[in-house]
């Protein structure tokens, strides 16, 4: 046990260098910065936007439109005379963002039952999504105005008739059902909130798995290249302790980086997923009622699934690392693992596991990294059997792979297995898996 800690300490010293820490810190800082910047921009957009209204009609109706704009958080400056082009140029020069022109005769036109037009000028300085948000609320103000005018007509034409029956004779009352429970809620809002809770998990998990796998494979390849592995193998350290120390050190470094990424990502993702809109009271109640909040049991299960996923990745990387002859070949060796990790991430984003074909479904279940991605969805759908089955499968696979890894380390395969990436001859390219002189060649066309 003492020797295990000696090796673990050495592995951590080797892995936790400035070369590994600086990129982690850099990513954390960049994402925090991005998140903060987006947040500030969102807040800026939420603040009342200035708009200049050129009211050439000077009527009761035009005044009503100005009042509605004020209600939907526009800071209105009213101009009642002047040449429109000159006013727009002046507003643009003074860094204004929008001009609304109400033409003369608007009220009279409406009263004569002729549809009228107002003109809007959006002053563009940048072409980002945030830059044109103001125009959307302009449309909302116009809709409100149209509804009001429409109501006015209905009331005049058919006194006693409720305008609502004309406009919305049927409207939907949305209920969402999860398991056996139903609650009134807007499905889009609910999905948004649930995603907010779980979206960060697959991204961080993906990063951690790739990073930990690279660490451990590079650690073995580096030791092989440097021939320190031969020295280490001839010391009294048990091979199992050697394997475990390497896995644990990579796991610790991966978790440290995960924590750093989480901090950065949380700020970034938080700013992207509806932080500005917030959650309405009805949605919050529905979420509670439907049990769509991760409780302690949910967190424990999710944590176990993520942990098992990392352990499986580490054991695969350990085996793959045994094939690497030098640090250069690590990238090539880790590539298949990266593909396998990415696959469930992409599939589960676009495919509903419950309705897909059985072949694809079982293929997804067979990939151990699918389960951490699916776990959150299953927990929210109250399908704990699938979560637990996934965790059991992952741990079983881990023990098999760890045994294989330990077996490789306890025999001379660790020194004799090779992945040869060198080209042999002018027309032959590809990979050669080699063990004790036996070669398996994968031709690259």
């Amino acid at each position: 046990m003492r020797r295990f800690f000696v090796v673990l300490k050495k592995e951590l010293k080797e892995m936790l260098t400035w070369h590994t820490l600086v990129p982690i810190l850099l990513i954390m800082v960049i994402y925090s910065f991005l998140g903060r910047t987006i947040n500030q921009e969102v807040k800026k957009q939420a603040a009342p936007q200035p708009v200049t209204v050129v009211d050439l009609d000077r009527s009761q109706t035009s005044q009503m439109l100005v009042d509605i704009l004020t209600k939907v958080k526009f800071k209105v400056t009213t101009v009642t005379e002047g040449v429109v082009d000159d006013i727009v140029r002046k507003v643009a020069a003074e860094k204004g963002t929008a001009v609304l022109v109400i033409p003369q005769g608007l009220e009279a036109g409406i009263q004569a039952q002729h549809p009228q037009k107002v003109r809007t000028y959006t002053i563009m300085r940048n072409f980002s999504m945030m830059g044109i948000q103001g125009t959307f609320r302009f449309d909302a103000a116009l809709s409100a105005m149209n509804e009001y005018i429409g109501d006015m007509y209905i009331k005049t034409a058919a006194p006693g008739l409720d305008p609502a029956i004309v406009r919305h004779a049927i409207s939907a009352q949305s209920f969402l059902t999860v398991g056996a429970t139903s609650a009134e809620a807007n499905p889009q809002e609910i999905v948004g909130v649930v995603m907010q809770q779980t979206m960060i998990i697959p991204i961080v998990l993906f990063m951690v798995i790739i990073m930990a796998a690279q660490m451990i494979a590079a650690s073995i390849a580096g030791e092989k290249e440097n021939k320190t592995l031969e020295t280490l193998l001839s010391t009294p350290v048990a091979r199992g302790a050697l394997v475990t120390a390497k896995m644990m050190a990579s796991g610790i470094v991966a978790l440290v980086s995960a924590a750093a990424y989480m901090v950065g990502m949380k700020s970034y993702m938080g700013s992207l997923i509806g932080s500005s809109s917030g959650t309405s009271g009805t949605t919050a109640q529905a979420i509670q009622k439907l049990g769509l909040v991760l409780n302690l049991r949910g967190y424990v299960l999710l944590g176990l699934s993520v942990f098992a996923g990392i352990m499986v990745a580490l054991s695969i990387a350990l085996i793959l690392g045994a094939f690497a002859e030098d640090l250069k070949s690590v990238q090539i060796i880790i590539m298949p693992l990266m593909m396998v990790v990415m696959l469930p991430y992409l599939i589960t984003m676009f495919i509903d596991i419950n309705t897909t074909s059985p072949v694809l479904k079982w293929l997804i279940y067979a990939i151990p990294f699918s389960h951490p991605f699916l776990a959150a969805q299953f927990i929210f759908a109250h399908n704990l059997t699938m979560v637990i089955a996934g965790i059991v499968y992952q741990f079983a696979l881990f023990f098999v792979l760890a045994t294989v890894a330990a077996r490789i380390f306890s025999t001379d395969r660790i020194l004799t297995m090779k992945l040869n990436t060198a080209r042999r001859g002018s027309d032959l390219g590809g990979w050669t898996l080699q063990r004790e002189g036996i070669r398996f060649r994968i031709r690259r066309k």
Partner: protein
Amino acid sequence: MEQALVVENLKKSYGKFEALHGISFEVAPGEIFALIGPNGAGKTTALRIVATILQPTSGTAHVYGMDVQKDAARIREIISYLPEEAGAYKNLTGLGYLSFMAELFASDSAVQREYVQRASDITGLGERLRDRIGTYSKGMTRKLLLSRAVMTCPKLAIIDEPTGGLDVVAAIDIRQLIRRTTAEGMAVLLSSHNMLEVEYLSDRVAIIDKGTIHDVGTPRGLKDKYGKANLEEVFVQVVKQ
């Protein structure tokens, strides 16, 4: 007296290629025994088997009576192995590396300190031991590794190409270092394709080529037997026969 190493009819195959065709030799305690031969002769394979990191296809090797396959863990307690052109952990300092390796062998921290002190004295690197190994020259790294290999006073040190790739001055330093440290009874099994080095260092040599040992004897005995002036000429004569 029990032999430090007894190798009997040792064979090792990599797939269809047989690297060792059944070699046999013995090393006595306190003796420096060298396997000499060209690159690819099977020297490193033989050394790795004795160092318990490769398994023989057939035949046996016993270190102080312990079998390299059955008693590998116990053998690792009393041997040290220095591979050819081995490196060290570049992010560690020389002292850090010695301390790490000493801790793997030592039973407690006092013994660990004793090992590190011995290695520090042997290296002759002085204050440079506090620098990162990444900044060391090849010769300095080799001295560090060699002192690491002997600091635990192993009963058998296995050293592959002790001076491979080193300049003349560094090579002489290393040879003297091995000579000095074996005076205390440590047996040494080394390999080299530098015949002159072996002639200076070894008590006995085995001439190995293409996985077969052709002759074993003292450098003087072999030179007399074949009537040659040095081991290089003896080697050419033996291999041609």
